[in-house]
């Protein structure tokens, strides 16, 4: 009987899985190189500029449309690194906020009144204040309070850089919403499930991890997707504390080269593509998790 619960994979879906894996690896590569300085130079000079450069240059000569990053190696590299940074920031924040969401939902179920009150305060505070002000608060107000660390060159620098603060504040912001989402999913799990698991001798933690959470996850994936899409879009706020992500870099390029419209449209396309990939992945996850007879 247990085999009926697992959804059989069709052979046509295998290609999609491979595509998704390849896409994820590519994204991680970009993010990694953005953060650790491995420049995706060969991507620009080796692939993009030879392929699209002449056409972009001809376009600029005939009309006034200046898609500079298709024929200038420097701008191409800059933009790719910015996009990589956005992808990496999104990835870190998505993972961290989901972890915060699960932990928070668990804390809200706990018996300790103090823990529940604390979680509730955290949720209400982060849900009802602007994420930008939170980010400023973290970066300008909390950062100076932390001890400074010495670099290898003997220069004191703040303990966390702008990227880390952006990741922290965005994760807490989205995590507060995720806690509520997971909680609503947990509440949707029938009480009899927990009781049945308890009567089979599961401990509290086991019930949560093996029974409640897997069922709750299926209920809350749609709203989780919604929130994660929102989070990916909110990573643009890191612009305000000068993390070199896509918007920041695009802003630099259009300030230098005065091609606002082209860069703006590129940004739109980039973000819509990023969100589309996320939604597609979440959609596939939702389908693969579906249990026959549960939900629709």
């Amino acid at each position, binding site marked *: 009987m247990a085999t009926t619960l697992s959804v059989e994979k069709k052979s046509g879906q295998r290609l999609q899985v491979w595509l998704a894996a390849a896409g994820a690896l590519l994204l991680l590569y970009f993010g990694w190189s953005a953060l650790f300085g491995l420049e995706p130079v060969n991507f620009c000079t080796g692939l993009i500029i030879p392929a699209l450069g002449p056409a972009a240059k001809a376009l600029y000569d005939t009309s006034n449309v200046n898609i500079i990053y298709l024929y200038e190696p420097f701008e191409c590299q800059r933009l790719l690194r910015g996009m990589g940074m956005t992808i990496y920031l999104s990835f870190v924040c998505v993972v961290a906020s989901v972890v915060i969401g699960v932990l928070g939902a668990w804390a809200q179920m706990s018996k300790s009144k103090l823990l529940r009150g604390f979680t*509730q*305060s955290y949720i*209400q505070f982060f*849900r009802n204040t602007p*994420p930008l*002000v939170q980010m400023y608060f973290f970066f300008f107000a909390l950062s100076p309070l932390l001890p400074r660390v010495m670099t290898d060159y003997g220069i004191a620098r703040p303990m966390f850089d702008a990227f880390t603060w952006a990741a922290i504040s965005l994760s807490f912001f989205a995590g507060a919403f995720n806690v509520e989402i997971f909680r609503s999913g947990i509440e949707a799990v029938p009480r009899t499930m927990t009781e049945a698991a308890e009567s089979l001798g599961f401990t509290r933690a086991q019930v949560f991890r093996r029974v409640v959470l897997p069922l709750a996850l299926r209920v809350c994936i749609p709203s989780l997707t919604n929130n994660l899409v929102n989070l990916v*879009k909110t990573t643009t*706020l890191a612009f305000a504390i000068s993390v070199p992500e896509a918007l920041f870099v695009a802003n630099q390029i259009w300030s230098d080269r005065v091609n606002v419209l082209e860069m*703006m449209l590129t940004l739109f396309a980039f973000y819509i593509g990023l969100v*589309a990939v996320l939604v597609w992945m979440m959609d596939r996850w939702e389908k693969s998790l579906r249990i026959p007879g549960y939900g629709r």
Partner: protein
Amino acid sequence: MTIKTHARTPKKPKADAPKPPPRDVVLAGLPPLPQGARSGRWGDWGADDFVRGFFSRRSALVICAIVASGILCGEAYAQLSPRGQERPGIIETMLNWAPLILFGRPGEIGGFALNILVSFMVMAIGTVTGVLLGIAQVTKSALVRIPAWAITQFFRNSPWLVLLFFTILLMPFQIRAFGYTIPFPDWIKATIGLALPIMANISEVTRGAIQSIPTGQWESAESLAFSRAQTFRLIILPQCVKRMTPPWMNWYAILTMATSLVSIVGVSDAMTLTKLAVDADGRSELLIPMYGMLLMFFFIYCYPIARLTQVLERRYAVVT
């Protein structure tokens, strides 16, 4: 033979026990409402809902307590440190700056008042255009439906900040029409920039509400010889208003928080002025209280709205 289960037996209601007044009413120090003060019709929530909104959760009080203790610690720090003697204390400084951050420079609209003004204007523009767009999304004609869907998805899935830059940088700063020159200051442009995503989201809310009305309503209206337009105006839309109110208010709260984004594009809202005030004083111990105060302004404005939304959601929940 009886089988003992672990299922909880339902509690017996105690009919004779006097009903204590709700804790939130006690907290607010108000007399309990007379029975039947609200009829439950659409649109008649009263002051009591707003009071409940703020006081019914202990968390609001906990947060206020945390912030107050933070301010007091800062104050103590400022008083105890030797260089703090010739300077005004933290609370005094905050009170000095509060009018500027709330209302902006004298003679112009700015500060938190500007945030509120922008949020009102954006919501007005976004609701009118969004409802029209949402209706366009469910029309029969594909020529209207597909562009409406595309516009909605485009503005719903783009980052707000990018849209804001889009309008700020690409809109003209004035328009000449019929011999008049209409100026477009930055904050008007920012308002339009914020209205775009709100429009798209309200469009989705409208579409969802229209599609959540049972088909039976359409069919019975048709059998009563209503035209499609009449059905829509007289039967479907009034039911939608009720369903749309909670998500609409939710979006208002989100928007109010998003108005702080206009500080990035150079509008002197509460955020900009806070930053200026902190820079002007140049005291590092002011950072946390000042930004904390700003957070509190937003929290005090948004939290009651969020609570009220929950109350309305519960009241208008579709019972299936």
